């Protein structure tokens, strides 16, 4: 454990709520509006932390545990990523499956809480969320397989760390394909356009927002914060794959990561301004395309 690792991790965890703000601000700017301040989510979180919580009479313990489980799993997943470009804080062989599993666990908790409220509306959101997950997870694992094959390493610390920089010249096409696939997953997993529209509260069009409708106060704050961290984690994956930082000084690598995350948030904002949300029955196609890109990367490396 080095100082650079800890500082980068803290910077990512503290800076994560700014990313959705940057995306929203970019979108507002491009569509000719002013938009909320970049740091809006911090104010929202502070406000939610002070408020009380309302629990429905039908909700059980599950509903109260879910936000904490979600946040805990996302934060644990953050420990597995080598954020300084060298090694992760708690890496072990095969931790890429743990990474995917932890993200799935968080989603599972959220979906259960949605079902627990007994509202048919939230059940619908839960069903949609799981539909997306069923298509997104094979794509995530395929993209990670590209990294495994390129670097011959089975831990995220190795795959995204120094061996990645060595693997780049030989496996550049596959790694670019994996990066593109991961970016498409970032849009899907974080409920951004073209999968889901974070700006809408219109009942039939939203997916992710539906599940959290019943949550309030600090619970909702935890969910929003976990969402921001998840956005940062996927962003960190994309940046790590596309910019191998193993050769840089750890501090420089951390700074590159933060700059890359901001750039990705801007890119997401541009996509949101330029594209409309896809129809529900076209969503699998988007994710299958992401899986096909990653699968093509795998094929290129197996040759």
């Amino acid at each position, binding site marked *: 454990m080095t100082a650079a690792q800890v500082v980068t991790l803290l910077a990512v965890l503290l800076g994560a709520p700014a990313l959705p703000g940057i995306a929203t601000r970019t979108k507002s700017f491009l569509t000719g509006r002013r938009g909320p301040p970049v740091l809006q989510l911090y104010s929202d979180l502070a406000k939610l932390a002070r408020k009380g919580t309302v629990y429905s009479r039908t909700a059980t313990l599950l509903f109260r545990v879910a936000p904490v489980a979600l946040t805990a799993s996302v934060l644990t997943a953050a420990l597995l990523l080598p954020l300084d470009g060298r090694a992760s804080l708690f890496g072990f062989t095969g931790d890429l499956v743990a990474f995917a599993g932890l993200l799935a666990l968080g989603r599972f908790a959220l979906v259960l809480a949605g079902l627990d409220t007994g509202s048919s509306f939230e059940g619908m959101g839960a069903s949609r969320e799981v539909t997306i997950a069923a298509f997104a997870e094979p794509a995530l694992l395929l993209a990670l397989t590209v990294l495994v094959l390129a670097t011959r390493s089975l831990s995220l610390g190795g795959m995204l760390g120094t061996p990645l920089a060595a693997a780049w010249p030989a496996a550049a*096409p596959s790694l670019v394909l994996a990066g593109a696939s991961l970016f498409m997953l970032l849009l899907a997993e974080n409920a951004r356009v073209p999968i889901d529209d974070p700006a809408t509260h219109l009942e039939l069009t939203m997916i992710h927002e539906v599940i959290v409708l019943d949550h309030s106060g600090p619970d909702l704050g935890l969910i929003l914060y976990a969402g921001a961290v998840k956005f940062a984690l996927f962003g960190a994956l994309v940046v790590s794959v596309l910019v191998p930082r193993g050769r840089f000084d750890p501090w420089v690598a951390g700074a590159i990561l933060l700059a890359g995350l901001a750039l990705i948030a801007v890119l997401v904002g541009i996509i949101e301004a330029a594209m409309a949300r896809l129809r529900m029955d076209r969503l699998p196609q988007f994710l299958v*395309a992401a899986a*096909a*890109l990653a*699968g093509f990367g795998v*094929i*290129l490396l197996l*040759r």
Partner: protein
Amino acid sequence: MTDFSDLLLLLVVLTDFWVLGTTRLSSTIRAAAIQGALLAALPIALHPGFSIHLIGLGLGTLLVKAIVLPGFLQRAIREASVRREVEPVIGFTASVCLGAVAVALSFAVAQRLPLPEAQTALLVPVALATVIVGLIVLTTRSKALTQVVGYLILENGIYVFGLSQAERVPFLVDVGVLLDVFVGVFIMGIVVFHINREFDSLSSARLTELKD
């Protein structure tokens, strides 16, 4: 130079996926046009050093595959006023999956083919994959115009395959092939136009109803 040609070949495969995944006809045609432009750059990237033969081949390909034929097809959809491919025999998601399987298969098969040494290891598998994708589009889409695009993609695959032998094939043969495709698509365009006028639709499924 092989890095650049590998990049071109990868982009060719990506345009294959694009054709398989898109529903809009104009987007399909645009993908075919971009693929044509990529193919035009390929011979020059593959064989460094200038020769009249290769430059001619590249320019001819660019003119026919990237400019004239797509422009002609775009005009055809304007006149026939069709916008979307509806009711394909195999759905779009499934055909992207099928395309991925085709790519995997062609990479597996290409290693076993007893071929003279190609310039880059990607050339033969990409050619096979493009041929199969063209075949998928040709057989599973219902609009006559998409089928023409499928035919173009199929021919692009054959062209990539021919590039591995470009040094040995006389220029006249290349020109003949290009001319063939041009005439083929031209005739198909006219046929498509007539189908549309007779039936008010471009769906080839309705051709089975043709009775005298």
